[in-house]
């Protein structure tokens, strides 16, 4: 089968040759361990993403026109497996997963040219501005306003839970262009320059003690009308499209990532002589089952797409499985380590620089961010199982 090649490749390549080529590339260009200082780390990560892009190894699913690899599905899977195995940093910000599919689907040619390749290369970091203090899962109630003034919108309001907000160059945001009463019918999708006057981004300390999120204050920020994606007041459909775009091959990436993490946890249990404990073995075997099912799910989603053009029901539940898995896994690791599991990385007695404890805290967000588990369960119930809407919820 002739396949799409990375830059500089012309011959027909087998899956194994493709895998070998990726491995060689990751080995040759591996950036090593990340710097600890956040600012240095940002520069370091951007350099790596540029390397990926410049060698034709960025954006496995992306159209080649936008600098991606446009790989057939099976190759995307191999890409994600090798990417996870190589332990190299992935995309910065939430642009690639959420904004990019929206721009590819709804953006004008000019918008695509201007935004996509720099996002993929890591030159420009995109962060999401959907959530507000009063509107998390209930996005139709958001209050940040954009008033039309000639060729510009004037934006006022506040966003919160903005992942990577402090590194952001661009915010893709939902804003209210209609009345408050118009709910989701008065929402537009704006791309806002994070360095524009009136934008104030403040890191938000989260429960890990770090700054995974920021809050964003928008005070008379002027945004060109040309930077609106889609129709005025037509942003709700776009937001829903992008949230639904959790790409299937990405679930393979998660499966590969957690395969590795679980193997490391098993190693840790072995080193500490805990495998003699039947309860420890039972729990580890349970994680083994779940991580394998994660992979089987991903394979099935991909096979469904290849055979039938769309992912089946497995795709709607795989994220729920992963969220629960990563929470349980890290908590078990902390339990297994006992009091030592409670030590922060400042302690010389901390095990593996406290990664399991950090994971325990960090993964609390897995069932909150991008829609709480409860909201996701509602969505699955209504959209996949066809259960009736809750009359107290907004119509869709």
């Amino acid at each position, binding site marked *: 089968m002739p396949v799409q090649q990375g830059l500089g490749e012309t011959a027909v390549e087998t899956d194994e040759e493709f895998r070998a080529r990726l491995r060689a590339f990751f080995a040759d260009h591996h950036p090593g361990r990340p710097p600890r200082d956040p600012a240095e780390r940002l520069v370091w990560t951007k350099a790596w993403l540029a390397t990926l892009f410049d060698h034709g190894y960025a954006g496995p699913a992306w159209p080649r026109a936008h600098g991606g690899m446009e790989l057939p599905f099976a190759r995307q899977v191999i890409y994600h497996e090798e990417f996870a195995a190589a332990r190299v940093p992935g995309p910065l910000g939430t642009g690639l997963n959420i904004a990019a599919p929206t721009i590819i689907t709804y953006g004008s040619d000019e918008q695509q040219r201007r935004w996509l390749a720099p996002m993929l290369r890591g030159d420009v970091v995109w962060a999401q501005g959907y959530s507000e203090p009063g509107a998390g899962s209930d996005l139709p109630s958001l209050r940040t306003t954009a008033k039309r003034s000639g060729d510009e919108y004037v934006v006022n309001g506040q966003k919160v839970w903005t992942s990577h907000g402090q590194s952001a160059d661009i915010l893709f945001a939902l804003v209210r262009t209609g009345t408050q009463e118009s709910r989701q019918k008065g929402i537009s999708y704006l791309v806002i320059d994070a360095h524009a006057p009136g934008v104030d981004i403040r890191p938000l300390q989260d429960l890990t003690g770090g700054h995974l999120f920021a809050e964003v204050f928008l005070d008379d920020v002027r945004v060109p009308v040309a930077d609106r994606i889609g129709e005025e007041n037509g942003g709700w459909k776009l937001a829903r499209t992008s949230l639904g775009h959790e790409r299937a091959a990405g679930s393979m990436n998660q499966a590969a990532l957690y395969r590795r993490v679980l193997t490391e946890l*098993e190693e840790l*249990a072995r080193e500490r002589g805990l*495998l003699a404990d*039947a309860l420890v*073995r*039972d729990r*580890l*075997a*349970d994680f*083994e*089952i779940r991580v*394998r*099912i994660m992979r*089987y*799910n991903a*394979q*099935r989603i*991909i*096979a*469904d797409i*290849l*055979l*039938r053009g769309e992912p*089946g*029901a*497995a795709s*709607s*539940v795989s994220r*729920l*499985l992963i969220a629960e898995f990563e929470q349980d896994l890290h908590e078990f690791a902390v339990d297994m380590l006992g009091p030592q599991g409670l030590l922060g990385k400042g302690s010389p007695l901390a095990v593996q620089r406290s990664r399991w404890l950090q994971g325990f805290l960090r993964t609390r967000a897995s069932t909150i961010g991008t829609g709480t588990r*409860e909201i*996701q*369960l*509602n969505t*699955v*119930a*209504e959209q*996949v*199982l*066809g*259960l*009736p*809407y*809750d*009359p107290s919820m907004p119509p869709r």
Partner: protein
Amino acid sequence: MSASPSEEQEQLRRLVHDFLQDRSPVADARRLAESGADGDRAVWTQMAEQLRLQALVVPEEHGGDGYGPAELGIVLEQMGGVLLVSPYFATVAMAAQTLIASGDETAMRRWLPGIADGATTATLALAEDSGAWDAGLVRTQARSSGDAWLLTGSKSFVVHGHTADLVLVVARTPDGVGVFAVEADAPGLTRAPMDVLDPTRPLATVQLDETPATRVGTGDASGWLASVTDLVLAASAAEQVGGAAACLAMAVDYAKVREQFGRPIGSFQAIKHKCSTMLLQVECGRSAAYAAGAAVATPGPEASTAAAVAKAYCSQAFTHVAKECLQIHGGVGFTWEHDAHLYLRRAKSSELLFGSPASHRARLAELVGI
């Protein structure tokens, strides 16, 4: 097979689905279970003659159609969905796959054509009084006497064992564990149904007292019996997925129409969350069962791993979903007349047959070197 059914496999699924909905819906499972019958003869014959389901995994040279465990899984998923009361699982998933795995040409020539055309029902008797599915614990003795073998001992939890025309018995020999074919009319063979939770899947005791038997395969059988176990586990997991999916569908249908406080109960988050969690388990189970169906086609460590994953997960999933289905039906679900308890019975029964989830996790841990 790929991780998702091909078009041909989809056709098989639809064919079996439509046939069972028409000829053997759950109401029939209830009727047969209450009467103590071990299946409907007419359905059995149609399955063999019109659908050739008994021939599915039998090699073509022995009168079958030569499909593999993936296709068998697709059929069993549908059978699990209607709680089919039938010696099909015992005959095809257990006995036929044992004969094929033995590689014993004589035995295959002798018994597989009868299985393929529906004339013969069969089963595999491995567990003894403890119920453990472990050839290492077998105490039934096989003694060679001239050309024949004589078996003495007792088997329990034998699926459809009281009616099977052919019982494949695992017994201990001087040269290791062996598999022996015992015909229904063999002298010294006594069989009786056990009093068990799940009336849709009768289990029997089989007593052997100097019972003449034919050896299947040569030498110690533990190696290839392990691969038979993987095949049976994958088959059971597929059947469990079908049962769980049926429970989910039943619960969702009910939640859409049953009203409380002036609205369908399915509009309440508490019910929605239950149903979505059930879907999660059904779909993850389905992925695991498909993966196992593909993996066990080739014996080896990957087959054992995938089979253990599927059986451990699908067992718990089916039982959980069956319990939630009953709960969503409320008081109605607690009545004898409702089907929910039939599924719960099958779920709990199949959870513990062929090894508990905990035992499969322990085996998995060993297999992957934890």
